[in-house]
């Protein structure tokens, strides 16, 4: 049996004359998938389409086989933490989560238990009795997250979930995402904090101006960017000698010795040939290699190559 997926089939969405997303074809497997792109690139539109908050102008969406037009089925399995920073008035954190679990149709005892469990997961138990209106930005973000996960969904859609969180809460939240991804859930995250996305994502979807410009595992996406030479960092005992040997190759466009004299940053159009050559040089010249690692197969680099702007906050 094939694994359940979130599928976009030739989906377009226009807001009047304005393009939201265009001709999106995606098949998202379980695990953590990050949506990356500048403001207005279509990340939130894609998430809203996935959850039925808006409808496609063209094409179809299905989430684990369920069309988003059937919220009564979709949201039994899906939780969505939106960017909207607004809450029903007059409710405490606990009441907020509890009330909407009752709207799911749960009995009171089950709703109360799940509400407490969700609050504990986002470390909000202490503030649960206070009105949401009195919460800080970070607390409001966490209570939204708790509301999205309270019914234990298998698909989590999280729009900028790290916004407003302090470093400790951010680390805890990322650990939660990892855990959910490892449990085989779909975790769809949009974030502009690229190095954090890079750390947790199983796959990325890069968006620009409403189009998907790349998708897949980040290393795979990087290797598809043919016009930008790959950067490979080699830590070894004789970087100058290595640089001289590498420059004999046509595919090597740059080799730069690092400041400490123990590293060489190589830019090449053919990484596979470089690795083969490196093996030969090691054998022929007795080179002692400490480490070899790609230096630009992270989200930030790919983002810059494909979208052409600086990829978000540190």
């Amino acid at each position, binding site marked *: 049996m094939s694994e359940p997926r979130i599928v976009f089939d030739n989906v377009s969405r226009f*807001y009047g004359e304005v393009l939201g997303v265009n001709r999106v074809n995606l098949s998202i497997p379980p695990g953590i998938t990050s949506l990356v792109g500048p403001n207005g690139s279509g990340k939130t539109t894609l998430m*809203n389409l996935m*959850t*039925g*908050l*808006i*409808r496609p102008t063209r094409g179809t969406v299905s989430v684990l086989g369920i069309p988003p*037009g059937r*919220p*009564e*089925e*979709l*949201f*039994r399995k*899906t*939780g*969505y933490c*939106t960017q*909207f920073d*607004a*809450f*029903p*008035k*007059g409710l405490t954190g606990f009441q907020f989560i509890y*009330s*909407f679990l*009752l*709207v*799911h*149709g*749960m*009995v009171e005892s*089950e709703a109360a238990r799940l509400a407490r469990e969700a609050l504990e997961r986002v470390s909000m138990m202490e503030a649960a009795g206070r009105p949401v209106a009195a919460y800080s930005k970070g607390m409001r973000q966490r209570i939204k997250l708790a*509301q*999205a996960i309270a*019914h234990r969904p298998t698909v989590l859609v999280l729009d900028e979930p790290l916004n407003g969180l302090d470093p400790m809460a951010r680390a805890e939240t990322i650990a939660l995402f990892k855990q959910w991804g490892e449990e085989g859930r779909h975790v769809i995250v949009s974030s502009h904090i690229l190095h954090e996305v890079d750390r947790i994502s199983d796959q990325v979807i890069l968006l620009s101006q409403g189009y998907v410009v790349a998708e897949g595992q980040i290393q795979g996406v990087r290797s598809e960017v043919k016009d930008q030479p790959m950067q490979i960092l080699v830590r070894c005992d004789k970087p100058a000698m290595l640089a001289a040997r590498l420059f004999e190759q046509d595919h090597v466009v740059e080799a730069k010795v690092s400041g400490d004299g123990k590293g060489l940053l190589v830019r090449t159009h053919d990484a596979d040939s470089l690795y083969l050559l490196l093996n030969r040089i090691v054998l022929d010249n007795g080179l002692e290699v400490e480490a070899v690692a790609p230096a630009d197969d992270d989200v930030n680099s790919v983002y810059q190559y494909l979208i052409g702007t600086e990829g978000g906050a540190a």
Partner: protein
Amino acid sequence: MNWSQITNQPWMLWRRQVAAILRLELKKSLFSKRAWWIYILTLGPVVITGLHSLINGDGHHTIGEDYMIFAGIYQVYFLRLGIFFGCLGIFSNLFRAEVLERTLHYYFMSPVRREVLAISKYVAGLIAAVVYFTGSVVLSFLFIAAHWGPVFQQYLMHGPGMQQLGRYALTTVLACIGYGSVFMLTGVLYRNPMIPAAVVMVWENLNPFLPSLLKKFSVIFYLKSLCPVSDIPAEGPLAFLVTATNPTPAWLAIPGLLLVSALLLTYAAAKARKLEVSYSE
């Protein structure tokens, strides 16, 4: 019984969901700062009729005249203004207020059929409207002749008073059902409820001049014939507001109004299924 068991029994699930939505909605519909003007609409006649009793304690008129005046107040103020605009405020805001407050998505992100959501919101609005306006009508009815003391008690207990009060209350409930369904639909269909409200108001007031078939597509057509006092002496250009031209028998008026309301509500629920969350436009 846990959630997964409940989800296998649709009627039980819907009943629980309606109850949960009512809990959230009634707080908003009954006790809201935004509804201050509805409180004024409902308290206004209560205060005026109360003052009438205080000031006219030894008035030179009859209790029958008081209730003829009440019949006029009921048809002109309650039906044409108070309940009409009160229902406009309550029902057209059931979805719209949540769009303005950017909280509608919490309902849309719950596993609830949109039809169940729409009907639950309608019922919450209806409870609020009935509490406000039936309360106001009943209190005004009692206050307008309270100064008659034993004569008033006699009129109420052994005369036509209690039956009249019952019919006013029933007509008020039906008015809330009818106008509620109209404004629920306009609230779902339009972002700005004022233009459709103006159209509905013109349509309702044109009712006496419409062909008999078109008259049936109006709430006031059914309500006027249910009022206990139909032959209010009235003159001048606005006399048509209180005169029932082709009175419909109650056995036809009540099911007719309920049918029209059910049709409107069904359409509103179907439209709610297509609603999108769009706060910025």
